[in-house]
């Protein structure tokens, strides 16, 4: 513990920047792929990023522990959720792992069906996952089994909808709670006007696409 102000944080010289390209990632992840051979799938590398798909979402805790303890992925960057509407299983949970020691990035994803909407928490393995999981619960409605404090985080407690699901309209739905909390639908004037993927211009041009 430095006592005086003059003993300020040290600045260390750093070698000139260097791009780290991990060409040996498949090699590095071999123990993991070996351990969970039946349920892990290495996706094609896109833009230099390694993506793993976990077929059996029940194993998420085991895989996370393995990543943290055996492969030095000590830094959980982010957890995202994707709603693949009309696909089964519907929800995809995406974990962005990073290692401060080896400077490697790894994406791990798994899917959860709509009926189940449940996944095991990893908030005791990575404390940072606590708020991310709460956010996913808030936005997508996926419950995390064993989470210490699964409440809404961004919307107010008691809000009945899950806004990031695809069927939820951007403008929102009117809600009136007995305690005074309320939301109204925003005026969209026919919008939002969104383009979609199509080979034909008349189908791809921006149109009002309000969800059913």
């Amino acid at each position, binding site marked *: 513990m430095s006592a005086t102000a003059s003993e300020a944080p040290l600045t260390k010289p750093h070698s000139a920047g260097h791009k*780290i390209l991990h060409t040996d990632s498949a090699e590095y992840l071999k123990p993991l792929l070996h351990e969970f051979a039946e349920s892990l799938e290495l996706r094609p590398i896109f833009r230099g990023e390694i993506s793993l798909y976990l077929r059996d979402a029940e194993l998420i805790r085991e895989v996370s522990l393995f990543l943290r303890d055996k492969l030095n992925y000590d830094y959980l960057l982010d957890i995202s959720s994707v709603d693949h509407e009309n696909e089964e299983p519907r929800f995809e949970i995406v974990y*962005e792992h990073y290692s401060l020691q080896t400077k490697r990035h790894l994406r791990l994803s798994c899917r959860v069906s709509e009926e189940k909407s449940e996944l095991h928490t990893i908030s005791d393995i990575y404390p940072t996952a606590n708020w991310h999981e709460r956010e996913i619960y808030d936005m997508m409605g996926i419950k995390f089994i064993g989470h210490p404090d699964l409440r809404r985080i961004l919307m107010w407690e008691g809000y009945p909808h899950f806004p990031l699901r695809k069927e939820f309209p951007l403008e929102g739905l009117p809600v009136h709670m007995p305690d005074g909390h309320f939301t109204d639908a925003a005026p969209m004037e026919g919008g939002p006007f969104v383009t979609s993927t199509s080979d034909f211009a008349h189908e791809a041009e921006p149109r009002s696409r309000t969800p059913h």
Partner: protein
Amino acid sequence: MSTLATKPSPSQNVRTIEVEHLDIAAKFEKEAEKYNESNPESERLVLNMGPSHPSTHGVLRIVLELDGEIITKAEPDVGFLHRGDEKIAENMTYNQFVPYTDRLDYLAPLANNVAYALAVEKLMGWELPPRGQAIRVICCEIARISAHLLGLGAFAMDCGAMTVFLYTFTEREKLYNLIEMLTGARFTTSYTRVGGMTRDLPADFIPALKKFLQEFPTRIDEIDKLLSRNKIFVDRTKDLGIITKEDAIAYALSGPNLRASGIEHDLRKVHPYCGYEKYDFEVPIGSVGDCYDRYYCRIQEMRESVKILRQVIEKLPSGPICYTDPKNTLPPKEAVLTKMEELIHQFMIVTQGIQAPHGEVYFGAENPKGELGFYICSKGGGVPYRLKIRAPSFVNLSILPKLLPGHMVSDTVAILGSLDFVMGECDR
């Protein structure tokens, strides 16, 4: 400009709401009661801080549970500025979302613009020509200085030093002038586009920046002198809010908050983007991880930013600033006005957006507050299927329940100030 409106009578336009049920104090009393029942021997007080509180830097609410003056439990409540950015992003083309990135971390909009553009460019697989990259470095570093200045000013004010706030705001005004010259707006800049920038540097920008860089180090020294050895300030920040290395990693802190705990991790160094590897700069790291280290890291980072800016000016290459892809970037305006094909092209790109490939990418950039990451899941077409923002402030705040207990109530303010968060980004 401003318009004058008459006050509507309460009965007509104003919604009346029963707020009795919402009595926040009563709710907390109930919470406290519950606690006291389980701990009969001690008397706890539940204190609500925020969402409207001068030192929470926006609309953060913290429910503190006190034993005397000592905090025994802290429960942050975020989301008071949740505006639905991620949902909005799913309903517009990639370029249309740029203005929303301004308003994420509204203290460093230029850096957000750059981070977002880089994320989409990673999805597209584009890399900017050297001049474009150099301009983006200028943007990032100006934003860093401006954000750290505000962070310091607000932090110092929370600790009772009003003068520093006025000093830093004077400097920020100079930066605003530069940013306005560059982008046309004081801080909602929307400067970048996917694959480039809206415009090149104006002719008189570099001399103005040079002048600023000449004067600014003296100003940092002044602020440094005002605070770094100030007895009151040091007493209020030293050994307070210590974040250990392990905690910093476990809670995935980033930016100066991580580095103050002694972990040398700067994305500009380890995964250089925009040609950061060409510039010589140092990454300041702390030794203890207390409020003072976080403060001092920011001071040092501003000095490093000045160093980087000087090198960029020196080496500033000439040439194009935008990536050109005949299929997917806007054609030059002269061609649009004279050629049929280019006109159609411009129309298609503006209405339908940039046609992105299928795939998912994550890109993180070293922003003033920490690692601002964008996860983009694309299913083709001009609209992101899902865009997740990894907001550094959100992640940095999640350590509060672990960090605050054991401190005094009055230290909360210093700790919050030293974490330097922005709610716009935290809540999205």
